[in-house]
């Protein structure tokens, strides 16, 4: 392929020719150039489009809400994010929790087990098939953005039925302080 075709046409006058050595074209420079360009394009290209996580926040407008649905305590989990990637969660209301505030960490051996356990608990307290755990995420001022993405990721992994990001209350901040997580 890369050799020049020097074979005789055949049928022209000179019948006997000494067989010439077939001269190959030196491709080294061309290949060098090609690889240089490949490298250039590989480095300047963004091959993968950035990934994204859709996030819908509850509407903040203070319009009077009619017939708002009450959430049963058994299905309401609140996750507080403190400093140093620590989590404090409780089930039910803060004053009268069904499961008292528990400290945990991120990851599959931490908060995921709790979420799964609480999902199972929530499923027991509902008759509808599509209803499960409702998680209220409240990050304190000591949390980082990574913590938020991690916990949202956890929601996606565990297929939590409903979750929202809420504002942390004074009592909850105090609770975090008490536990040394703020």
């Amino acid at each position, binding site marked *: *392929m*890369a050799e020049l075709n020097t074979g005789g046409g055949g049928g022209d006058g000179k019948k006997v020719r000494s067989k010439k050595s077939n001269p190959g074209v030196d*491709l*080294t420079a*061309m*290949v060098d150039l*090609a*690889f240089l*360009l*490949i490298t250039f*394009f*590989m480095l*300047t*290209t*963004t*091959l993968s*489009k*950035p*990934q*994204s*996580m*859709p*996030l*819908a*926040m*509850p*509407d*903040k*407008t203070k319009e009077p809400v009619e017939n708002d649905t009450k959430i049963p305590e058994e299905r309401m989990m609140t996750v507080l*994010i403190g400093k140093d990637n620590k989590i404090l969660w409780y089930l039910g209301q803060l004053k009268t929790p069904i499961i008292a505030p528990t400290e945990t960490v991120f*990851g*599959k051996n931490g908060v995921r087990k709790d979420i799964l356990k609480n999902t199972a608990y929530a499923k027991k307290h509902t008759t509808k098939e599509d209803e499960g755990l409702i998680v209220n995420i409240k*990050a*304190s*001022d*000591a*949390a*980082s*953005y*990574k*913590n*938020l*993405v*991690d916990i*949202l*990721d956890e929601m*996606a*992994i565990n297929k939590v039925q409903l979750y929202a*990001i809420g504002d942390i209350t004074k009592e909850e901040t105090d609770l975090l302080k008490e536990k040394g997580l703020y």
Partner: protein
Amino acid sequence: MTAMCDVAFLLLSFFVMTATAKQPEPKPVDTPASTVIDKLPEEGVGTITVGDKQVFFTIPRNIRRSTLERVGTEKGLKFTEGEYKAFENTEGFGVPLNQIKGLLALKPAQRTEPGFQKGIPYDSINDQLTVWVKQAREANKAVYDAQLQEGKITAEEFGKKGDLAIAIKGDAKEDFITVKRVIDILQEQKKNKFFLITGLRNEDF
């Protein structure tokens, strides 16, 4: 040698064809990882970059000019044709409004020098991020409104594209309060749905 040459050129053609040049960003950030693998829409997304407590805004190219026009009208700033052209070619920016003319007068390479742009003010006293986002959304709406009037797009498409999608690209180490402030700014103008740009999580999470 022949085979190598063939492969090299095959790869070369592939990269040339799929290439979209990496745009220089005034603030490179390290996004947190997630397992969600939804892709960001390719166009029509305004990106708010958050890093080191600084905020930068990237407006989609097709509405950059009209956004600057609108912001200029609101804030009583006049821009020249050259400045509009320069703004259209600026990928992301992060300077207060009073410095925007100075920024546009610079060469593109100077603009994206790390640490040169200090971010758009977004505190409650001087909240320029709200202005930019609001005007970009209105500019986007005007574009698709016009297309809807002309019958180029259906009402359904307008519903999808009419409201400018906003993506937040935050640094993993960024404090939550900074991102929360940006989210609050978006929510104040009833923008309750947006994207968080993340990287791919590869380790066993």
